[in-house]
C-alpha cells in the first residue's frame, strides 16, 4: 500500500516542471479595513487579480502614482506590512460549470454549502457544457448588434405583476419599496414559479443576514427549485469588498448559462446595500465623496451591471438574462440618490408600499407608481386581452375611493366602478409562496373584467376564484389547451370559457 503511494507521488513529481519566470512583485505598505496599499506592481491593470503571500486574493482598484489600492477578498487580518503581493495578469475571474446549479457559493464562486467542490464531471441534467470554465467578473455588456427586443414573458406567478406590470425575458425590472414590504417574497415567488419554464435562476444575496439566506434556501429546496437555482452570497458579516463583487459574480454565472442559449433570471437582493459597500470601499480608498457621500461613479457601478442583462438574438446564440434588482427605500422616498439612479437604468419598476401592506393588500404593489416599459410586448395574447384595462380601472378606483369619502351621494356608474375596484383588489391579493399559473390568471381576470364577479360578495371572492379555476379546468378544456399550447385566444375558446364561468356562477350564487 505505502509502496503504491510512494510510486504515485514519484510519478507526479516526475510530471512536475518547475518554471522560472520574472514576475511583478509589490510590497504591502499598509492594511486597514479590507484594503491594502501596495507599492510596486508598476504594470498592473485596474481590476486585475493579485495574490498575497499567505494565499489570499485581492483586486487592484486604485492605481495611484506610487501605490496601488487593493481590496482584499478574504481575511485581511492575516496580511501584514511588508508582505509580498504578486500580480496575476488576469482580471478577477470565477470558475463555473453546469454543476453549479443547486449550490450556494460565495462572492468569488467558492461553494459554502458544505457539499464539496464544484466538479467538472457529469454535466447537468439539462445537458450542455460539463467542463469548468473561467469567466471574468467584469465584462463589457453585449453590443447592440447581438441583441433582440424583449418578446417572451417571464411568468412570475404573481397576478398583479403578470397582468399589470408584465416582465419580459431580457428585461430589467426594479423591485423597490421600504423594509418589510415583501420585495424578497416577490423574488422568491418568481423563482418558485420558474419550475418547468426553461429558466435558470441566480439569486445574489448582498449584505443579508445568514439566517435569512438559510430560510430562503430551505424554501427553495422545499419547492424543488434549487435544482435550477444558484445562490451567490456575500453575508452581512463579510468584508465590503465581497458585497461589492457579489453581483458581478452572479451575472458572470448567468452569462455562462446564457452563452449556452438558456434563459436566466437574476435577482440582486439588494443594490442599496451594494451601493453602501461600494461607498465604504471608495471612502477607504480616499476617493472623493459626492452626493450622500457616494463616489462619483456609483451610477456606472449599477449601469454596467444591469446593462449585462439582455436578450441575445438567434445569430449570437440566443439566451437571455432577466434582471430583478431590489432597492430598499427609506420612508418611501424614491427620490433619493440610489433609487433614482436605478429607476433610470431599469426598464420599469414595481413599487411596493407599506400602507398597502398593512391594509392587507399583499403583494403590496402600488399599481399607479409601478410601470413596465417593455414587458407589455412580451405578454401572451390571452393575458393582453383580459388585462388590457385593468391598470386603468384600478387607478380610477383609487381616485374614486378617495373622492367617495367626502360624500355619500354617488351615481350608479361610480358605485359600479367602486364595487368592481374592490373586487379587483381582492383578486390581486395573493398569499406568499403560492404563484398562480398564467392560464388560471387569465380565467380569473376574464371573470373580473367581464363583470362576472360584480355580484359576488367581496369576502367570497377568493372562494369564488378557487372554485372557478377547478370548474373551468374540468369544463373548458379547449380554452386551456389553446392558452397553454398556442398562447392564442379564439372566439371558440372564449365562448367555452364564458359558458363555464356562467354555469359555475349560477351554482356558486345558489
Amino acid at each position: 500500500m505505502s509502496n503504491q503511494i510512494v510510486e504515485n507521488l514519484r510519478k507526479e513529481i516526475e510530471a512536475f516542471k518547475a518554471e522560472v519566470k520574472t514576475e511583478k512583485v509589490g510590497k504591502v505598505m499598509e492594511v486597514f479595513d479590507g484594503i491594502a496599499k501596495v507599492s510596486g506592481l508598476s504594470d498592473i491593470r485596474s481590476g486585475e487579480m493579485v495574490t498575497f503571500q499567505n494565499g489570499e486574493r485581492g483586486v487592484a482598484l486604485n492605481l495611484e502614482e506610487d501605490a496601488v489600492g487593493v481590496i482584499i477578498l478574504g481575511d485581511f487580518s492575516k496580511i501584514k506590512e511588508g508582505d509580498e503581493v504578486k500580480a496575476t495578469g488576469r482580471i478577477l475571474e470565477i470558475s463555473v460549470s453546469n454543476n453549479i446549479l443547486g449550490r450556494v457559493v460565495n462572492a468569488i464562486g467558492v461553494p459554502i454549502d458544505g457539499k464539496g467542490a464544484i466538479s467538472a464531471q457529469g454535466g447537468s441534467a439539462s445537458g450542455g457544457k460539463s467542463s469548468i470554465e473561467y469567466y471574468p467578473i467584469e465584462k463589457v455588456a453585449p453590443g447592440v448588434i447581438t441583441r433582440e427586443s424583449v418578446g417572451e414573458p417571464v411568468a412570475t406567478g404573481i397576478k398583479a405583476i403578470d397582468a399589470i406590470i408584465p416582465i419580459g425575458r431580457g428585461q430589467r425590472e426594479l423591485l423597490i419599496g421600504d423594509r418589510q414590504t415583501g420585495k424578497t417574497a416577490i423574488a422568491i415567488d418568481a423563482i418558485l414559479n420558474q419550475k418547468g419554464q426553461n429558466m435558470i435562476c441566480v439569486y445574489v444575496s448582498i449584505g443579508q443576514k445568514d439566517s435569512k439566506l438559510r430560510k430562503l434556501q430551505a424554501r427553495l429546496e422545499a419547492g424543488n427549485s434549487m435544482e435550477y437555482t444558484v445562490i451567490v452570497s456575500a453575508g452581512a458579516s463579510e468584508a465590503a469588498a465581497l458585497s461589492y463583487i457579489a453581483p458581478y459574480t452572479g451575472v458572470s454565472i448567468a452569462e455562462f448559462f446564457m452563452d449556452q442559449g438558456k434563459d436566466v433570471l437574476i435577482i440582486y437582493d439588494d443594490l442599496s446595500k451594494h451601493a453602501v459597500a461600494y461607498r465604504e470601499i471608495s471612502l477607504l480608498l480616499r476617493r472623493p465623496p459626492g452626493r450622500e457621500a457616494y463616489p462619483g461613479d456609483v451610477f456606472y457601478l449599477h449601469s454596467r451591471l444591469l446593462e449585462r442583462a439582455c436578450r441575445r438574438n438567434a445569430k449570437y446564440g440566443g439566451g437571455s438574462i432577466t434582471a430583478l434588482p431590489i432597492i430598499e427605500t427609506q420612508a418611501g422616498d424614491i427620490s433619493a440618490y440610489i433609487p433614482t439612479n436605478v429607476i433610470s437604468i431599469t426598464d420599469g419598476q414595481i413599487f411596493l408600499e407599506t400602507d398597502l401592506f398593512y391594509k392587507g393588500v399583499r403583494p403590496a404593489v402600488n399599481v399607479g407608481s409601478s410601470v413596465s416599459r417593455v414587458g407589455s410586448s412580451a405578454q401572451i395574447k390571452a393575458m393582453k386581452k383580459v388585462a388590457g384595462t385593468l391598470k386603468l380601472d384600478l387607478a380610477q378606483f383609487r381616485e374614486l375611493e378617495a373622492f367617495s369619502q367626502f360624500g355619500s351621494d354617488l351615481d350608479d356608474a361610480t358605485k359600479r366602478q367602486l364595487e368592481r375596484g374592490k373586487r379587483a383588489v381582492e383578486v390581486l391579493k395573493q398569499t406568499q409562496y403560492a404563484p398562480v399559473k398564467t392560464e388560471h390568471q387569465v380565467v380569473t381576470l376574464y371573470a373580473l373584467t367581464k363583470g362576472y364577479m360584480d355580484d359576488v360578495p367581496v369576502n367570497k371572492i377568493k372562494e369564488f376564484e378557487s372554485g372557478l379555476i377547478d370548474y373551468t379546468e374540468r369544463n373548458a378544456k379547449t380554452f386551456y389547451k389553446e392558452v397553454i399550447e398556442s398562447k392564442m385566444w379564439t372566439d371558440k375558446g372564449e365562448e367555452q370559457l364564458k359558458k363555464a364561468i356562467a354555469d359555475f356562477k349560477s351554482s356558486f350564487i345558489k
Partner: protein
Amino acid sequence: MATITPKNIAEAIYNATKDKSGRELEESLRGSVRVLWQKRMIGKSDDILKELQNIFERKEGVVRVKVTTAAKMEEGVRKKLEWELKEKHKARALLSEFFEERDVLGGMRVEVGDEVTDATYRNRLRQLEKFLMQEK
C-alpha cells in the same frame, strides 16, 4: 487644492539644481531648504531625499539590484551576473547588493525594482507543493 507630496518637492529640487555647480548649486540648495522650512516640510526630508535619489538614479540610468542566495557567491560569478543584468536592463550603472539567506536553500533570487526572478529552491518547492495539492 491637491497636496504637495515628497515626490513633487524632490522633482522641483532636481529641476532647480540640474546642471548647476559651485556657488550656483549652493544657492539653489539653500533656496530649497528655505522653501521646505516655509512650507513646514522639514520633517519629511528623509522621504524627500529618498525620492530625490530615485529621480536621480532614473534620470542617470542607474539600476539597483538585490540578489539573494543561500551561500556566498564567488567573485567571478558575481561579476558575470552584474554584467548580464547591466546588459539586460540597458543600465549606465548598476548598484548591486548581495545577501545570504539560508532559508532559500539554493539557487538565487534577483530583484530589480518591482521585477522579481525567483529561481531559488524554496520557490520551486512551493511550486511543487501547489502542484501536488491542486485537484486533478
